[in-house]
């Protein structure tokens, strides 16, 4: 993790008073799939510039919650307000434009595009050139293209992905680097809120530590708010300020890592198995 960081900071995160208040407010969120209730009446807030984790046993409804926040699924009931704007009825690409970006539990890169191509697709919403301008080859298009490429390379530095890979295909990257690339792609859309779905899944302890460092760095240097789904308790306890615990689709606890660790309901539902083991 030695790469220099030159990425433009996010203005929203920099202002001190913007740190007050919530960037995301979820109220009464319920998601049903036919008979199955995946999320039930969830209330949950994310303060600006914080790192918040959602934990819970497999099938607790963590990813479903994620998918609703990022606009992948329409909630059955309830509201999601992001940065003061209700997300009801917005398409995923609108949500991205508002400043939310995500990664996936099972890495979903554009496999047969280059590394830099992936990042540039991430930057799509912040670029302006239209198809007819591209055909005409306007100078504004070329300049934007150059700027975006430079920015994409800086993002590769940011996530400690060597620039040498820029023209390689995403699928040829080693596993850990694919996760980093996914984060770079998400960052390229200039998010205020970054949703990371199990960013350390399948990583060895060293890779996990590097990922934890990266997450902390993203908040520190870009002023991002980060929502994390994570299984690795060391990561969760180490990096997050607040933790929300889901079990069978319901929120059963919320609090600081210390509170969660000692919460009897959580121990029963989740950590309890580890505690007694």
């Amino acid at each position: 993790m030695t790469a220099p960081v030159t990425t433009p900071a996010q203005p929203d995160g920099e202002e001190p008073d913007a740190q007050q208040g919530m960037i995301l407010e979820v109220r009464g969120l319920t998601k049903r799939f036919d008979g199955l209730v995946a999320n039930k009446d969830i209330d949950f807030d994310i303060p600006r510039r914080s790192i918040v984790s959602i934990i819970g046993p497999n099938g607790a409804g963590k990813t479903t919650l994620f998918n609703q926040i990022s606009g992948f699924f329409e909630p059955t009931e309830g509201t999601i307000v992001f940065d003061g704007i209700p997300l009801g009825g917005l398409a995923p690409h609108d949500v991205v434009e508002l400043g939310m970006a995500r990664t996936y539990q099972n890495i979903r890169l554009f496999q047969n595009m280059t590394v830099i191509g992936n990042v540039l697709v991430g930057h799509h919403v912040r670029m302006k050139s239209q198809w007819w301008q591209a055909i005409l080859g306007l100078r504004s298009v070329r300049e934007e293209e150059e700027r975006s490429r430079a920015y994409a390379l800086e993002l590769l530095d940011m996530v400690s992905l060597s620039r040498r890979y820029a023209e390689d295909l995403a699928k040829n990257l080693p596993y850990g680097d694919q996760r980093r690339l996914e984060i770079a792609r998400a960052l390229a859309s200039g998010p205020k809120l970054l949703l990371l779905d199990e960013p350390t899944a399948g990583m060895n302890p060293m890779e996990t530590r590097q990922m934890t460092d990266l997450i902390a760095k993203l908040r520190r240097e870009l002023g991002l708010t980060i929502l994390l789904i994570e299984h690795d308790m060391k990561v969760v306890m180490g990096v997050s300020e607040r933790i929300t615990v889901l079990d069978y689709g319901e929120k059963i606890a919320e609090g600081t890592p210390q509170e969660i660790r000692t919460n009897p309901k959580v121990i029963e539902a989740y950590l309890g198995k580890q505690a007694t083991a």
Partner: protein
Amino acid sequence: MEPLARAAVRRAILVGGVVGAATVYMCMVGLVGAFAARPLIAGVGGEGPGIVTLGLVMLAAVPFLAGMTVASRLRSATTNASGALAVGCAALSGLVGGVLLAAFTLIANAVPLNGVFIPVTPTLVDILTFEQGPVVGPILLTIVATVAGAIGGAIQLLDSRDRRAILSGIGIVLLLALLKPIVDPILAGLELDAVRDFLFSAGGLSQAAAALTLALVVGLSWAWGRPAAPLRDRMRSMPAEHRRRVGLALAAIGIAALLILPQISTGFVSLVLVNVGFYLMLALGLNIVVGYAGLLDLGYVAFYAVGAYTMAILISPSSSLDGPITALVGPEWAFWLAIPIVMLVTALVGILIGAPVLRLRGDYLAIVTLGFGEIARILFGSDALRNWVGGPNGVVGLPNLHLPVLGELTGPGEYFYPVMAFAAFAAFVAWRLSNSRTGRAWNALREDESVAQATGVNTTNYKLLAFALGGTLGGLSGALFAVQLRTVFPGSFLLIVSITVLAIIILGGMGTIRGVIVGALILVGLPDALREFGEYRFLVYGAALVAMMILRPEGLFPSKTRRAELHEDVDVDDRPQLAASGEATA
């Protein structure tokens, strides 16, 4: 026998069986008979029928290729069988194939088969037996097949440079002989009678010319592949910018050669190239839809039809609307004024076709668009629309195209320049789009639609845009086709147009412009130029596509992306440094 040899022999016999079946099939459908009528290399003195015919080449090529396949498997790094075993097995596969074909010859000789298989005539038997009678002939045939197989095997023993030199030598000689109907008129046009007399006679390529070409190509190819070839090394050591310039210069020479071609050759060549141009534009348009955005459209002919009919109705004085544009501005400018309207109409049709299929992916999209293509053709030919588009008779009487400086075009071959200009325009548009924000959004759509959307791509808009722009290029092609033919009728817009265009893209390499150009030349130019191929066009298409899918699924000129996608194993091996350094950073 040791296990390796046993497996090798078994495989050789299997391949031989395939060879036999393939050659017998070629005989039964009439390929061999038809191709035997095309002499490639003339007899001694250049008189009489050629000694090497296309039919003979095909008969020998099949066991030759089989021998190469068998031996290459045995000589691979993992197997590393002895040379004798490899050549022996290659010969064996040729022998098995030869015996099967000889057996077929004997049967055909004894039983009259041409009641069912019309091409199986005594003439065919004569060809297969080299006119040596029913005893010596089949033996000779078996020997030829065996020897061809053995040579195919032996060629694998050479190191790759020698092999490449010999194979390209043989390939170029055959190509030159095959292209005689095109090359000969060009030489005549250039008044290079001496060269012409040396190269060709009535029986095909002269033996001296064949030998000279072979020596030349083998020599050049060998020199180029030499470990320290001065020219190649200079090319490679050039900075990228220089290399790009050399590439551009070569492209410019190619384009210049193309541009003077109609001046120095017969109208026939221009006509073939005009047809290639139509398909090139279609393929470039479909490439946007299929290659860039990954939307498999099997009804692309609909755009061709809409473009052609729109142009016809707008400018033909005998159309249902009496050719409003021609009435307005006269025949000189009618085409040029109608072109933007055609583009607009086809773009709208693209959106109309795209809108209902937005939610469909893959196979479902393919089936529905297939239906759209047929609907378009049937609608244009229907009685319901007869009053507007003329039903089965179509629209006739389109005025000739007038070019700003060159004036009125009278013959269909004169459309060469405008068609090439429009094709170049289409290629330019496709190229500019491919390297843009738009192109990347399409690629993302092709790779993973949901993730593309969650990354910020408005998938609805970009799908519609792909259909609209792809449709516009197809419509332009149709509009030119209409004025060139001066008549538009539904029979021109069959399903096979969609299939041919898709085949061009697949053969050339999905998503690349260079590949599309080569694909159009091979799949449209070749069958048009060579009547023998024209007859068996679809058989050749099918065989070519199957062969491509097995040997080079990424197409002849693939994009970097496609190649990697389809050769995963190779790519990983090719990049040890990537994996290793990745380990270090991980």
